[in-house]
């Protein structure tokens, strides 16, 4: 994270609220990389992730006055980014046919002792499962928070996470007979 911005966060935010475009750009430069990383881990394509990056910062510029400085600035920006990424998933719902294919063809593929690296295994998960894994395990959101962002129940988030880990375990060749 941009150490300069963190040290001057208060004054940058104050300038951004007053409509100073250079302050808005400072916010963009400081959080561009982590926002993109989050978006890219959730979205299927680089184009979608870049669109999410753009939409996130447009929202940040628009709503900077709403940031109450109760939590961290990054926490606020990250929640906007996660919401935008999940919104993009909903818009691209047709891609969830991947998951259907996984269900139909899964047994044959999963029974085969596949050993792939973590990047490839993560990429192979359905978009919803991957989003839950990333938001819960890496970003640290709770199931309640994920459910709230996704418009689903906490049980849905929990079952998606369990299912994703079962698959990752298999695809990473971590299955051990006990």
């Amino acid at each position: 994270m941009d150490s300069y911005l963190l040290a001057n966060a208060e004054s940058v935010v104050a300038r951004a609220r007053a409509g100073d475009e250079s302050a808005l750009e400072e916010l963009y430069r400081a959080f561009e990389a982590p926002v993109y990383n989050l978006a890219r881990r959730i979205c299927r394509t680089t184009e979608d992730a870049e669109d999410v990056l753009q939409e996130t910062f447009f929202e940040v510029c628009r709503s900077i006055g709403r940031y109450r400085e109760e939590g961290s600035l990054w926490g606020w920006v990250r929640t906007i980014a996660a919401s935008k990424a999940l919104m993009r998933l909903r818009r691209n719902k047709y891609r969830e046919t991947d998951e259907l294919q996984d269900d139909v063809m899964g047994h044959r593929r999963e029974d085969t002792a596949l050993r792939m690296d973590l990047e490839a295994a993560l990429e192979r998960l359905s978009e919803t499962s991957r989003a839950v894994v990333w938001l819960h395990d890496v970003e640290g959101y709770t199931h309640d928070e994920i459910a709230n962002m996704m418009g689903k129940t906490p049980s849905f988030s929990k079952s998606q996470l369990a299912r994703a880990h079962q698959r990752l375990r298999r695809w990473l060749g971590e299955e051990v007979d006990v």
Partner: protein
Amino acid sequence: MTHLSMESLLSLREAGLEPGDAAAREHLESCSGCRAELDRLHQRVARLKALPALRPTRDRWPQVAARVRQERRARRRRIGGLVGLAAAASIALGVLVGRPAGGLPAGEQEIRQAMARSQALESALSQIHPDERVLDGRTAGIAQELEDRIARVDRELEMADLLGRQTRDDQLLKLWRERVGLLDALVDVHVTRASNVGL
């Protein structure tokens, strides 16, 4: 021996105690297979966290900045349109302002006072330069709603002007008073917001 499910293992990683966690912990004590599975789960999550950060290949700031500027221009146009409508309405009913106050019936005097108050508030609003500032989402929403309501009142005033003498003074007074109330609220929204951020 029944081993712990993935749901149970994941639940053991959560901060709060879920129903069934106590029994799962008890099982874990006596089952080396499940302990190894939980360990693999911890390691998998640690590896996920350690994945390299992906970076965008293109700079998207120019597009973001262009949209921000575009929205500001649209807002400026909206405010400009609002003041224009108000001016038109004032001119249309200017005949009232032009008359000496003493010779006016009570209803017309009140309308004249409301119009003067409306113009003073518009002047105050233009000095705040609301169009040049970024409002937070909630404040912008309130300001937009007030602007829309003022525009509706202005349309009714224009209609009243077209109808001429068919519009009664009490109806006109009601519209002008409503306009004053809305403008007052709009100025208040901008002034309050400005003082909140020390502008």
